């Protein structure tokens, strides 16, 4: 392992937040090329399944995380229960915030078709979204947090899956329309 790789590993170990390559360049006083190479070596060393710690690119930088294989032991040691999975309502509200941010509370409710108070509040309490101001009409406006990126393993918001893949296809639309019409015809019979 090169000296520079070792230093990079130490810096990632110490920093509570993800560290960008630019920050590594400044701290190590090496060139960007050298840092990139050192990161590459470290990435190989800390690939999944090799050690207890893995290198990850999340929240706009590099960071270390424990290998998922040790999750159960870690939760026993830290007496930390597993966070509950997202409910359907929470996942939907989060998807809307993630893709449309900044987005207001009423907008979330409008798209979901139902009031989303409790889902939004839970997401905020879990630190996945946060208020980023108020709209002209006084409604709370939300955006996702850095924690969101970390917990979803995203190196940045541009790493969210391409939204066009979720667009309903023309077949979807036809199917939905037919379903609505068919429901009507059944009634008419």
């Amino acid at each position, binding site marked *: 392992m090169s000296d520079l790789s070792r230093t990079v590993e130490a810096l990632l170990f110490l920093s509570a937040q993800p560290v960008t390559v630019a920050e590594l360049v400044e701290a190590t006083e090496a060139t960007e090329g050298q840092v990139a190479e050192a990161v590459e070596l470290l990435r190989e060393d800390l690939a999944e399944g090799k050690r207890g710690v893995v290198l990850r690119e999340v929240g706009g930088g590099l960071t270390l995380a424990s290998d998922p294989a040790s999750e159960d032991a870690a939760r026993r040691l830290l007496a930390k229960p597993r966070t509950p999975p997202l409910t359907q309502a929470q996942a939907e509200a989060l998807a809307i915030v993630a893709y449309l941010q900044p987005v207001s509370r009423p907008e979330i409710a409008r798209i979901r078709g139902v009031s989303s108070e409790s889902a939004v509040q839970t997401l905020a309490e879990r630190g996945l979204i946060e208020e980023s101001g108020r709209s002209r009409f006084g409604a709370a406006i939300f955006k996702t947090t850095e924690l969101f990126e970390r917990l979803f393993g995203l190196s940045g918001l541009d790493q969210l899956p391409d939204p066009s893949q979720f667009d309903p296809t023309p077949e979807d639309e036809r199917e939905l329309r037919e379903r609505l019409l068919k*429901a009507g015809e059944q009634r008419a019979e």
Partner: protein
Amino acid sequence: MAVAELDLDLDVFAGPFDLLLAVVLREEVSLLEVQLGEIVVAYVEYLEGEGDLELEVATEFLVLIAALLELKSRLLLPAPEEEMEAMAPEEAVEELLARMLEYRRYSRAAEVLADRFEAERGYLYRSAPLPAELRRVAVDAASAVYDPDLLGSALGDLLTEPEEVDISHIRPTVSLQRRLTALREALGRRPEFDFDEEFGGEDRLTQAVTVFAMLELYRKGEVTWEQDRPLGPIRVRRLRVAGGGAGGVGGGSS
């Protein structure tokens, strides 16, 4: 289970709840004929079978049923012709379709995000303080960037005791049954009266439930009313005396 999938078996409709919404919007089923009470009963029965109340789903249900109630009460109230035509069935379908398509987009994105969250839950991050010698460095390099008043005002917000939540409206005394009785008693005393004169002293919720009671009696052909202009006085008029008194009310859900 999503509310949309709640299986209904009503007099005029059998199928999932979302389909009912669709056909109601298309006016294939007249909302006037739908016993909303039956839907509530179906939902409550489902809850009993299921054993646990999922707050999200319950909220969704309440929002939908409230929307239906509002729609139904609008249909029951006499309205100017042009307003009745404001949204043609085709428009309603297009509007509904557009909304469903938009919602579908985000519900798919939600699935992907939920899966991703699940897959990422095993990775844990270190949150340990810096070793003492390095902490020293950060302290030395720190200069004032935050305003202490930020803390004072945050504390002030926390000291503010929220207003007492007014729960008078959920006292169990406002039942549809009782408002029906009150309404019939009022109609028994005189064949015609002014709503505000008779019930204006009641709180908002009691008044609202009384209006629902009026809708129920309208359905039974016992009462009608007139209101010349929005927010104007409501003249309530008896059509025929209720047969047999207390029985036979309550939304026809039996």
